C-alpha cells in the first residue's frame, strides 16, 4: 500500500491539528460507539473532533447518518435515509448525563422524506433535555425544512436556547456547493422566521470560506445575516474531507479571518466568530457564554 511520493504536507502551518493523548478522548469515543450514538464530528470527519472529545463535548447527529440531499462539500453519507431510531431521545439523555455536558448541540441530516422533515423528533429531544436538565443550554443546528413554517415553529416551540441554520457559503456559490433544493434566500428566510416566531431565541448561522468567494461576497453575506437579525455567525475554512468532495480553492489566513471579526464588530450588530479551525458548533459553549445565551 505504501506508494512513495515526495509530497510533503500541502497544508499551511495553521491547518494542523494536534491529536491529544488518549484519556477522555478514548472514553468518549468508546462510549459513543457502545451507545450507537452518531456525532457530526465523526460523520463529517471534523478535524476538531479530537480536541472537542478531549474536552468532553460532541455534537449529536440526529435522524440517522444518511442525508437526503447531496451537497458537494459534505462528507456525510448521501442516499435513502434510514428508519428513525425511536430510542434516540433516551440515548442522547444518557450521553448528556454520562458526558456531563453543560452545553448540548443537536444537529441532523436533512430528511426530505419525512413530512415534517424530522422537526417533531428533534423537538421531542429538546423538550426532554430541557425538562431533565433545566439549567443546561441546548443549541439546535437544523436543515431548512424546505421552508415549512410549521416545522420551524415545532422546533421554536420546544424552546432551544440557540436556533442555528447555516447558509454554508456566499450567495453566488450556493448552487455550486449545496444541493439544488437549498437556496441562499430560503436559508435567510428560515432565520428571519425564527426571529419572528420567537425574538428571545438567539439565532446563529455559519458559512465556509476557501471555496472561491471574494472578500466583498463574504462581507455581503455578513450584512445579509445582520439585516435579518441573526445573533451569531461562524466563519471557518472549508477543508475537503476526501477527494470525492469539491477542492479547496484557497487557504484563508488567520489575519483575514481576524479582519472579518473586526469588520463585523465595527460595522454590524452580529457577533462573528471566525478562524481556520472554526466550525458551526466549535466551542459553542464558550461563545454562547460570552454572548450571554
Amino acid at each position, binding site marked *: *500500500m*505504501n*506508494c*512513495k*511520493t*515526495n*509530497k*510533503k*504536507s*500541502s*497544508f499551511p502551518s495553521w*491547518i*494542523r*491539528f*494536534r*491529536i*491529544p*493523548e*488518549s484519556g477522555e*478522548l*478514548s472514553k*468518549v*469515543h*468508546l462510549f459513543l460507539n457502545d451507545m450507537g450514538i452518531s456525532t457530526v464530528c*465523526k*460523520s463529517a*470527519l471534523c*478535524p476538531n473532533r*479530537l480536541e472537542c*472529545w478531549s474536552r468532553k463535548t460532541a455534537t449529536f447527529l440526529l435522524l440517522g447518518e444518511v442525508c437526503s440531499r447531496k451537497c458537494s462539500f459534505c462528507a456525510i453519507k448521501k442516499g435513502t435515509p434510514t428508519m428513525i431510531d425511536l430510542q434516540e431521545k433516551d440515548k442522547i439523555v444518557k450521553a448528556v448525563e454520562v458526558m456531563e455536558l453543560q452545553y448540548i448541540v443537536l444537529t441532523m441530516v436533512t430528511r426530505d422524506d419525512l413530512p415534517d422533515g424530522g422537526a417533531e423528533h428533534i423537538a421531542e429531544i429538546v423538550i426532554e433535555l430541557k425538562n431533565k436538565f433545566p439549567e443546561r443550554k441546548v443549541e439546535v443546528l437544523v436543515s431548512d425544512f424546505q421552508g415549512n413554517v410549521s416545522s420551524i415553529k415545532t422546533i421554536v416551540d420546544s424552546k432551544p436556547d440557540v436556533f442555528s441554520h447555516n447558509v454554508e457559503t456566499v450567495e453566488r456559490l450556493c448552487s455550486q456547493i449545496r444541493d439544488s433544493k437549498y437556496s441562499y434566500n430560503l436559508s435567510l428566510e428560515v432565520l428571519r422566521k425564527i426571529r419572528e416566531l420567537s425574538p428571545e431565541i438567539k439565532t446563529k448561522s455559519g458559512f465556509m470560506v476557501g471555496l472561491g468567494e471574494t472578500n466583498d461576497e463574504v462581507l455581503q453575506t455578513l450584512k445579509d445575516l445582520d439585516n435579518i437579525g441573526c445573533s451569531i455567525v461562524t466563519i471557518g475554512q472549508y*477543508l*475537503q*474531507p*476526501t*477527494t470525492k468532495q469539491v477542492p479547496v480553492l484557497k487557504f484563508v489566513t488567520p489575519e483575514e479571518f481576524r479582519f472579518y471579526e473586526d469588520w463585523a464588530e465595527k460595522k454590524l450588530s452580529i457577533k462573528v466568530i471566525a478562524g481556520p479551525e472554526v466550525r458551526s458548533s466549535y466551542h459553542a459553549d464558550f461563545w454562547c457564554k460570552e454572548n450571554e445565551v
Partner: protein
Amino acid sequence: MEYFVRIPEEAKPDEADVKVQVSQWLYKLNDTVQKGSDLVEICTDKAAYVITVPVSGVLSKILIEEGQYFSPDDSICIIDTATE
C-alpha cells in the same frame, strides 16, 4: 521493550479508503523521545495532524518514511522503551 506506534483508535478516519500520508517526522532515528511531545505530522485529504509520543524511549525504527502513504491500521514507527 518495543512499542509499535499507530494512529490512536479514536483518531482514525472513518472511511477505510481515506489515504493517510506521513508528511514530516519531527524526530530523527535514534533520538530520545519524550511522552507527550510532537512525534510526526501526518495528513489526510482534509488536514494535517500531529501525533504525539505515546511512551518515552528511543525512536528505534521508522516504518513509514516521509511522503509514504499508509493504512490507518499500520504501525508507523517503533519506540524502544528499554533503552530510555
